[in-house]
């Protein structure tokens, strides 16, 4: 700080050689560890003296707990503790409503609800001991159908009515008419996030009644708030650190092992590890809401939409989770990216005794898109119009208002996205029967057809999705950025609590720091609750919101550095520029080195950053500026269908998406590919089968997700129409592909078979029957 800087002549920018800025695709910093098996996921953690926790879950859908006898379990050799609801010191938990007991209290409301916990020195001993807990149940009448739940005499899940939320949207003429009316009912099955890394974590008690929890999750601070509530502890006693996350997709937004592991650790005084197996994972997190949809569109003979009426019913299961927000999305976005002057939407979320449902990628828009896109096809067919053209005709454009009256104030390239996918080359015709390749046919190496009975179809779909949290939610992120000289090299440390779940946010944070501060070396601090909340890794929001916070923190660091340089050099800060390791005057002369300015000090700034506000919608009309930003995508699917066996091979799944600005183009493409696969999975194969409230297929043997044989090659076109309201112009990327891919696949199967197919996933019998 005291050395006199030497003035040297202007030189080329110090940052010209920087690698890995925004717009580049640097490699992810955790890649090397991950390919070697050395990255520590939640399930890989280990501590001295560690013992294992397991959960005992309800075998019943709805039952009163008459009594629990933990004696035989507790007497098992190797068992350290057995806990029930009586051992929970604090209150209920829940993302939006604290309606869920940590352990069932007096009553179980769904198949798989946690009832008791066991800690033992081997996971198998714990599991065997859990089976010895004697729970006497008295079964109660259950409601396992969403529509039935709203009838006045339906069994009550919580005793306060089964309606969780009803969102009304009323716009324009309340009694609209149109020359052409199309309508349909659509059913969407229950999809699972099916992340590969099971729920897991390690709770380590300290000797002062507090706890450190290392856990795979999506939102550390929401977890911390709920754990504190349940344990009756202040936040400083409950410290969270993100363990390696093996995928999330919404399924880690609610608590899983969190409170359970902490309770066992506090009781035994030992570190507790909990890892679900796959079966328990299916019971241990919320799923995508099954939905029942009734839609009616009215249009002119020219194809222009006059009105839309829609009723969406989301089955929230036994606890609220994020059902209210899903209902909000389904209602406000559930008519798709179309201009519709007259609108009546009723979106409902209900309690039932089915498994709880909550967040999954696409959040309320996925279900609705199957219905509005099927109806657009129907309309096109009735008018003998092209299915692409009718969407382009009605598609939103920048400057339009959506059905809640909100101005679309940045790019809305609906027509262009559709044109792009339509103009992409089509896959080659199916090979003739004497040169076929089994892998390319429906049924694959099962050798079920050599092409006979196989027909091809093409389908299109387009969507839009909100980015970030909506309806007035205080949606912010916090970033701490530190700049210092270490080993003669400028080094930035970036610290946020934002969950890296595989999407590549840590790479994005590094890219932003490099871009803003011109420093090559950026260290990513472990994610924990020692820094302020980053909000959830969901709603396609982290690159926007945590990206915005990191950018703002870098700007604060830069300002502080220039302030120090200004004092040292007696030059106005506004006349100085930070250029990598140098301070440069506005004339381009290097006036000091960063080393001169910082010495052994660090500049360390923490910034809390919010996007522009959103507002609740009007309770009667649903009108209001509910959302921050909209993201658009379109898909074209090409399928071959074996009409005799009902088997489907997706031959191509092509897409175009506007991402505003691709901070990391390779990672953007990765999100689009992975998201498209999940949408295709819902259209074709993914469903948790729930009968009378019971889950029948909690395994990867019976719950199918796409394999590498199911996924076709994809053509992808990424548009970058910057959103002027967002940092760098970014637009959320992760969710739209999961929304428009499934409806495109369903449309292609309908086109190939001529069947109505008003339910997903489309099973073979739906194609072959009738």
């Amino acid at each position: 700080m005291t050395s006199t800087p030497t003035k040297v002549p202007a030189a080329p920018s110090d940052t010209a050689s920087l690698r890995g800025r925004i717009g580049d695709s640097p490699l992810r910093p955790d890649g090397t560890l991950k390919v070697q098996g050395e990255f520590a996921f939640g399930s890989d953690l280990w501590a001295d003296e560690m013992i294992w926790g397991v959960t005992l879950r309800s075998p019943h859908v709805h039952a009163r707990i008459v009594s629990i006898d933990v004696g035989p379990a507790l007497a098992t050799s190797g068992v350290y503790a057995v806990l029930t609801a009586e051992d929970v010191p604090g209150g209920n938990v829940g993302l939006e409503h604290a309606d869920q007991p940590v352990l069932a209290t007096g009553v179980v409301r769904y198949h798989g609800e946690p009832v008791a916990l066991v800690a033992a020195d081997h996971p198998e001993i714990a599991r065997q001991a859990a089976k010895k807990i004697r729970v006497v149940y008295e079964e109660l009448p259950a409601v396992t159908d969403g529509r039935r739940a709203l009838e006045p005499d339906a069994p009550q899940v919580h005793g306060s009515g089964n309606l969780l939320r009803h969102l009304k949207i009323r716009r324009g003429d309340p009694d609209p008419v149109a020359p052409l009316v199309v309508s349909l009912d659509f059913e969407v099955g229950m999809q699972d996030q099916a992340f590969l890394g099971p729920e897991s974590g390690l709770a380590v008690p300290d000797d002062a009644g507090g706890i450190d929890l290392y856990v795979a999750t999506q939102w550390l601070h929401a977890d911390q708030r709920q754990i504190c509530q349940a344990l009756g502890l202040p936040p400083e006693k409950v410290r969270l650190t993100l363990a390696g996350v093996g995928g999330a997709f919404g399924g880690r937004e609610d608590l899983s092992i969190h409170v359970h592991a902490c309770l066992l650790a506090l009781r035994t005084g030992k570190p507790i590890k909990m890892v679900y197996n796959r079966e328990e994972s299916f019971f241990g997190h919320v799923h995508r809401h099954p939905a029942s949809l009734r839609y009616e569109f009215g249009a002119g003979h020219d194809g222009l939409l006059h009105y839309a009426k829609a009723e969406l019913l989301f089955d929230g299961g036994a606890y609220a989770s994020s059902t209210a927000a899903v209902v909000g999305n389904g209602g406000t976005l559930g008519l798709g990216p179309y201009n519709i002057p007259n609108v009546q939407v009723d979106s409902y979320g209900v309690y039932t005794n089915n498994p709880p449902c909550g967040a999954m990628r696409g959040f309320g828009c996925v279900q609705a898109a199957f219905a509005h896109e099927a109806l657009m096809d129907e309309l096109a067919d009735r008018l003998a119009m092209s299915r692409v053209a009718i969407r382009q005709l009605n598609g939103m454009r920048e400057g339009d208002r959506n059905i809640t009256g909100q101005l679309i104030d940045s790019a809305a390239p609906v027509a262009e996205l559709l044109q792009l996918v339509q103009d992409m080359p089509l896959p080659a015709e199916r090979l003739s029967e004497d040169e076929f390749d089994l892998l390319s046919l429906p049924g694959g190496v099962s050798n079920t057809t050599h092409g006979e009975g196989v027909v091809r179809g093409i389908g299109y779909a387009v969507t839009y999705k909100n980015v970030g949290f909506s309806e007035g939610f205080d949606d912010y992120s916090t970033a701490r950025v530190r700049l210092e000289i270490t080993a003669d090299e400028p080094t930035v440390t970036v610290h946020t609590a934002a969950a890296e779940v595989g999407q590549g946010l840590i790479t994005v944070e590094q890219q932003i720091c490099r871009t803003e501060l011109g420093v090559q070396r950026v260290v990513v601090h472990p994610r924990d609750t020692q820094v302020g909340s980053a909000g959830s890794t969901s709603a396609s929001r982290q690159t926007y919101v945590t990206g915005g916070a990191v950018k703002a923190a870098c700007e604060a660091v830069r300002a502080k550095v220039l302030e120090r340089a200004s004092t040292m050099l007696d030059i106005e800060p506004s006349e100085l520029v930070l250029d990598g390791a140098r301070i440069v005057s506005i004339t381009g002369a290097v006036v000091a080195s960063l080393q001169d300015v910082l010495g052994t000090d660090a500049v360390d700034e923490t910034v809390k950053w919010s996007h522009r506000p959103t507002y609740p919608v009007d309770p009667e009309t649903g009108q209001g500026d509910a959302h921050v930003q909209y993201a658009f995508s379109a898909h074209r699917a090409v399928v071959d269908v074996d009409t005799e066996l009902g088997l489907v091979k997706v031959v191509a799944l092509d897409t175009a998406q506007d991402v505003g600005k691709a901070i990391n183009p390779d990672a953007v493409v990765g999100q689009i590919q992975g998201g498209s696969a999940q949408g295709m999975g819902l259209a074709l194969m993914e469903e948790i089968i729930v009968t009378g409230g019971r889950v029948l297929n909690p395994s990867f043997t019976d719950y199918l997700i796409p394999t590498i044989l199911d996924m076709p090659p994809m053509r992808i076109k990424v548009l970058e129409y910057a959103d002027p309201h967002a940092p760098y112009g970014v637009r959320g990327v992760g969710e739209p592909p999961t929304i428009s891919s499934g409806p495109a696949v369903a449309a292609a199967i309908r086109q190939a078979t001529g069947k109505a197919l008003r339910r997903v996933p489309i099973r073979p019998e739906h194609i072959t029957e009738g």
Partner: protein
Amino acid sequence: MRITTTVNGARREVDDVWEGESLLYVLRERMGLPGSKNACEQGECGSCTVYLDGIPVCSCLVAAGQVCDREIVTVEGLSDQQGLHPVQQAFIECGAVQCGFCTPGLVVTAHDLLARTEHPTDPEIREALAGNLCRCTGYEKILDAVRLAADRLAADRLADIRAGSSGRLT
């Protein structure tokens, strides 16, 4: 029971193994080798794939007692002092890694494919990797990675032949 086996070239002996434990559990919880992953523990996802006497297997389906005096290679054993194996390097460079939970199993399976097949076609790659589930990537970049690794391994072999050495065979 006591298990004596060879893992990644080193003799390993572990005691007090319960008869019901899988090879996956013993590797992860008793040998300090958590690289093989526990995604389904029923042989459906391939995340726990290891070599057992040179054959890739789901270690979750192998009872611990079956591995006595046999040779196991896990994902931790694929890189050496020279650095990452070309398959591992290609997975990083091609963006085939997102959350990374499926990655160790895929790396072992792809390693095995390329040891058997120098220039696999896309259908051959798809068939070989069909037992490995990935939920993040949609598989496209995994295909890219296997193609890239195949090219590099072939180039390495060619260079080795020209240099007259036997080189790395897998």
